[in-house]
């Protein structure tokens, strides 16, 4: 086991309806870095991401074997162990999807949603945290007068930054990004990339991307998924 690694996979295999997607993958992914995963479409890059927050379990039909250990701040955890709470895991391993997916509620409630689920904080605390998080993703100035508006009226780039703010709200140590800029224009894409580089300072990011230029600009380590294996490119 790599002592400096944040995520360790041992003999990780994944099959979807008896079709092998990943085969015997041993990895040690470093903390506070951006790890990019590239590869042709349909080979299982999104599935690979969803292994770390167990989101694949929502769709059914999959089988995961092997061991995945995440070294959280309070100690290492086998995320497929019997004691692991899936809800808790997903609060500690956030995810941003390919297309922005704001919830059918206001801008404020979208960002506050992870805290509202836990209902452990006062409204003032939540409001303060929402403002902090929106500032962190450089969105506050653009939406401060529209916090009570439907989040779905924001532009694509704004929606994606909103989704990143929402994913960061529960302070995850790991952030999974599934082609986060694929539906955005160049300007919005550049803003998201700047944000990812900022986020790398205190968390681990695993990003699926088809854009080689983007990978070169932001990633610290790059893997290619091919033939059910992850090969390190650099």
């Amino acid at each position: 086991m790599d002592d400096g690694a944040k995520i360790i996979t041992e003999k990780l295999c994944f099959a979807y309806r008896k079709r092998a997607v990943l085969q015997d993958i041993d990895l040690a992914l470093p903390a506070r870095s951006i790890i990019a995963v590239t590869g042709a479409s349909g080979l299982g890059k999104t599935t690979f991401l969803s292994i770390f927050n167990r989101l694949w379990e929502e769709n059914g039909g999959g089988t995961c074997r092997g061991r995945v250990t995440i070294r959280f701040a309070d100690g290492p955890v086998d995320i497929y162990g019997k004691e692991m709470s899936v809800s808790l895991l997903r609060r500690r391993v956030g995810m941003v999807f390919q297309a922005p997916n704001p919830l059918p509620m206001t801008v404020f409630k979208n960002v506050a949603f992870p805290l509202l689920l836990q209902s452990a904080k006062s409204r003032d605390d939540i409001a303060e945290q929402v403002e902090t998080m929106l500032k962190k993703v450089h969105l506050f100035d653009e939406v401060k007068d529209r916090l009570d508006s439907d989040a779905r009226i924001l532009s694509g780039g704004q929606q994606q930054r909103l989704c990143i703010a929402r994913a960061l709200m529960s302070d995850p140590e790991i952030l999974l990004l599934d082609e986060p800029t694929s539906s955005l224009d160049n300007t919005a894409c550049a803003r998201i990339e700047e944000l990812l580089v900022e986020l790398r300072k205190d968390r681990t990011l695993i990003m699926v991307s088809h854009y080689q230029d983007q990978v070169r600009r932001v990633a610290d380590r790059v893997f290619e998924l091919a033939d059910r294996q992850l090969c390190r490119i650099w």
Partner: protein
Amino acid sequence: MRRLLEQGVAIFSWSGTLLLLTVLLVLLGYLGYRGAGAVDTGLIFGTIPPLDALLLRRQVFDGLFPAVAGTFALVLLAVGLAAPVGLAAGIYMAEYCRGRSRQVLGLFFDILAGLPSIVVGLAGFSLTIALHRLLPGSLGPCLLISALSLGFLILPYLIRSTQLALESLPPALRLSAPALGATKLQNIRYVLLPARLSAILGGIILATGRAAEDTAVIMLTGAVASAGLPRSLFEQFEALPFFIYYISSQYSDPDELQTGFGAAILLSAVCAVLLLGAFIIEQTLSRRLMR
């Protein structure tokens, strides 16, 4: 050739819509032409002053007020009884039921939706007889049995519309709350239902219309020609669809038939009020959920 085919399909679709619209307008126009002359306060309240009737100071014997009130009570009760069950079953079908049981239950609900209303009415009638034998003298054909039978009739529409509304959500939205740590129940409560609220309420609106127009079920389970205002769930009642059926099959002069057309206009107005009510509820709920 392909372009010609596309144009043909577009013209066919447009013609179908136009035909439907024309039939609807002709139907409403004919209804207005035959019945508008009969629609006045006398048709609803008879010789009783409207305020006295509305405040229940005096009973209406020669107007349709009891039938209008009976129709409202019947439809609201039927939808009120069926909607929670239909929503729950629809949520179960869309979110929890998997594999073979999903196929079997889906087939069962489709068969239920295709059941003729007279068969449901007959089942309600049999239930009434069974209850009457079980509790002699205390329970017979009544508003509650009618509402239960009507509720059963509209149940498959509610189930299927809720199920389809939830299943049509994009996968990315379906996964967004679980990815943030939400449980399945939290996902349904905070995301899936609010996102498809208008489609689900659309199903309830359609079911309301179906409940308001049905005659076969109520004529076998509790509706009568003359019962006065419905005073309890366990009494017989009057309803507009039954009155229209009764008058159109028994009329003895053209004036009576015109009263039947007037009642049809009233029934359309009752449906419009119910649909407007459902629309207002949808708007209010949407705003509340958005806050």
